[in-house]
């Protein structure tokens, strides 16, 4: 049976033709001690199953070939054998014990997040990841790269084969040092996601309102790719994860530039917040902010998804008092609409509110300046 399956597999592969060079058949061994322990455990159980399979399928095949009426066999009449039945209850039990012991060891290892060198907070959003370096104050979002995003649209006519790392590439990868015990803490902003990089050996659900944790100590510098593993809505298939593991020196250099950029951005934001913008300026910026933060639900054309997500186009909120509009964008509404006061700065909020009031043919005509956005935390 197994042999038949392999042959069938090979035949079907040939049928499909030009097999992609990268395809793999098995779990990756990964790049951490934990991932290798999980791989070894996987192979161990796999071989135990193969051994039991050979015996069971062997006996079954023998019986099918030989115990046939067409061979003139007279059927036996036995229908029980206590000794045999005890044996095939006890032996599997012992085999299970032999699996449970190493499984326990590896699970204890996987759960030991103590004595970590650094902590990264991972927040799942529909449909992107946010990485916060709790020790260094660095904080950024990571979304599907533009090329994949263009190619993955329905009817894009772009051949995915021509896109490098199709669906497995992001704009800002998570950068971490090698040989450091990294503790990850996970949470989510909207629905449950699951952060999975096979090379690290595990996945962990990110749950809104709760914190879960896991850890990794990566041995080799390199780029490791993964995906969200828990169904999280329409674009669940399009929120990849890229982890870039750098040597300590490279990591420190990266950290320094990030910190400098963060400070510069903060200064810029303070200056910008007091500046006065024109309507076209706010509209241009607002469109970018809208597409990155609102379009997933309310849609790029502002029409929403009837029954699920309200339209912005012609909505009483976008055409009503500006204070109430601002309040919904800043603080959120109900279970589904998150508040953006913590994720967007004043300029972004002012721009997106202005865009929503004047875009999509709303043409309300008023605008919101960053200085009118109340300060948050």
């Amino acid at each position, binding site marked *: 049976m197994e042999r038949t399956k392999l042959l069938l597999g090979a035949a079907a*592969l040939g049928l499909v033709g030009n097999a992609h060079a990268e395809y793999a058949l098995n779990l990756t061994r990964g790049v951490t001690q934990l991932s290798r322990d999980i791989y070894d455990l996987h192979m161990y159980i796999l071989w135990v199953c193969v051994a039991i399979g050979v015996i069971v399928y062997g006996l079954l095949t023998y019986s099918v070939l030989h115990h046939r009426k067409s061979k003139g066999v007279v059927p036996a009449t036995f229908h029980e054998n206590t000794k045999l039945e005890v044996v095939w209850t006890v032996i599997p039990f012992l085999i299970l014990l032999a699996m449970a012991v190493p499984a326990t060891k590896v699970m204890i290892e996987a759960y030991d997040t103590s004595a970590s060198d650094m902590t990264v907070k991972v927040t799942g959003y529909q449909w992107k990841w946010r990485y916060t370096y709790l020790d260094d104050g660095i904080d950024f979002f990571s979304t599907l790269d533009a090329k994949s995003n263009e190619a993955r649209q329905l009817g894009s006519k772009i051949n995915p084969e021509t896109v490098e790392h199709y669906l497995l590439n992001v704009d800002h990868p998570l950068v971490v040092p090698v040989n450091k015990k990294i503790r990850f803490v996970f949470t989510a902003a909207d629905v449950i996601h699951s952060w999975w990089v096979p090379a690290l050996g595990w996945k962990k659900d990110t749950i809104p309102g709760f914190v879960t944790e896991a850890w990794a100590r990566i041995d080799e510098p390199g780029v490791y790719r993964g995906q969200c593993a828990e169904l999280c809505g329409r674009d669940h298939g399009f929120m990849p994860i890229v982890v870039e593991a750098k040597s300590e020196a490279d990591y420190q250099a990266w950290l320094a530039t990030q910190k400098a950029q963060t400070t510069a951005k903060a200064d810029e934001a303070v200056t910008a917040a007091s500046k006065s913008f024109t309507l076209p300026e706010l509209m241009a910026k607002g469109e970018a902010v809208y597409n990155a933060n609102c379009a997933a639900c309310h849609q790029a054309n502002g029409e929403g998804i009837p029954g699920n997500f309200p339209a912005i186009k012609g909505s009483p909120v976008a055409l009503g008092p500006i204070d109430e509009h601002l309040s919904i964008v800043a603080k959120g509404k109900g279970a589904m609409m998150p508040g953006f006061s913590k994720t967007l700065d004043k300029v972004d909020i002012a721009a997106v509110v202005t865009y929503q009031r004047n875009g999509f043919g709303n043409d309300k005509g008023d605008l919101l300046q960053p200085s009118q956005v109340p300060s948050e935390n």
Partner: protein
Amino acid sequence: MSAVTHEDLHDHHDHGPAKGFLRWVFTTNHKDIGTLYLTTALIMFFVGGAMSLVIRAELFQPGLQFVDPGFFNQMTTLHALIMVFGAVMPAFAGLANWMIPIMIGAPDMALPRLNNWSFWLLPFAFALLASTLFMDGGAPAAGWTLYPPLVLQGGNNLPFAIFSIHLLGISSIMAAINIIVTIFNMRAPGMTMMKLPMFVWTWLITAFLLILVMPVFAGAVTMLLTDKFFGTSFFNAAGGGDPVLYQHLFWFFGHPEVYILILPSFGVVSQIIPTFARKPLFGYSSMVYATASIGLLSFVVWAHHQYTVGMPLAGELYFTYATMLIAVPTGVKVFNWVATMWKGAMTFETPMLFAIAFVVLFTFGGFTGLMMSISPADLQYHDTYFIVAHFHYVLVPGAVFALIAATYFWLPKWTGHMYDERLGKLHFWLTAISVNVLFFPQHFSGLAGMPRRIPDYAVQFAEFNAMSSIGAFIFGFSQLIFVYVIIKAIRGGQPATDEVWEGAAEHGLEWQLPSPPPYHSWEVAPLVK
């Protein structure tokens, strides 16, 4: 075993079925209701199958060619709900209705009017569910597990889906009560519990599982409803609730549910193998105890579906050990089937072919199940195509093969005609080969890192997905042969004898009634020695 006495003892006039369509609306006859269930299941099997072909067409190549990702999610959700609640469960309910009274020597089910009602709830439940496809925002798209908070993002589809589940739950509970009462009260003289055919035993245990878990599921989805519409916060952290609580409730139902789908399959296979091996079932009593232990264990292993939610270490380990234990009684079953075949005088008619394929391929799904019970390894397997492969192996060449085998096995009894054996065998080989082309490659794509429930994928998964899709279309269209064979047998064919299969009369009461059986199956209870 018994003698059928065809004397005219009944003092009431033998009213046959009513005429025309109303016969099916008002029927309280166990065989009519069984036929209704089986027909509904077959239709829903094609509806759910068509949805899976939408999925496989989209996944044939990387890139999005046919459907929007949101619609793709509706398809995966409805495919699963329809296959579980619309195809497999009603099909087994149909077999139970048709066969249990006949197999225990009863004239009908114990509660015939309840029986009518439990069937007739189904069309309304499916209409509610299907209507969501035509709503603004479409059908539920959060997966058949309906996890919050995602499922709460659905619009008006949510209450419709939930009311549909309520109706299905009421229907299942009533059917289960009927089956339990029938088995406990309607057995022929001499038919002691330890003489019950395995199919009856497995259904008895299944019925208890249904009664115990369907209310939990109904409760959990009702909590979703109040969270969405009445301001409660059972599953909303912002209000002090916990989204993972839903998962615990769901899987407390969901794990026994998978045994609800597979235990009657065990029963079917335990009827078929002895018949065609011309040998009694090996280890009857250990089969009964193994089924009961699987039923009991199914209540204490639910969180193995949640190894990645961040349970405490002790929880992970407990659920690992408890889940591994299920391998013991399941192993006993497989060994018993092989021992039944051993030194038998086998022939390989279509039901036997499907039953043997069941043993081989269900066992294969059992192996991957054992692998996934190991929590640290499951940190990799979870939510990938590896699990998709696993549960399809136990549900398609598992439960569905058992259903097909049962249909071929009992079709001559039901219709009074032999089916076309040549077409049956063609159906078997096409099905058995294509099911492996369909699901076997999914083990590889899963291990290589492909998550489940995605409409598009990285190019290194292209080969395996293309194979799967080809297999899916061959598998799907091969089932049309099955429908043709059934219709052909209903319309006519070589008349079936009472025992249908050589020597079958020794293997159960159903083979002692005429083919087809009289309208009131056993008007005079047979005496079972």
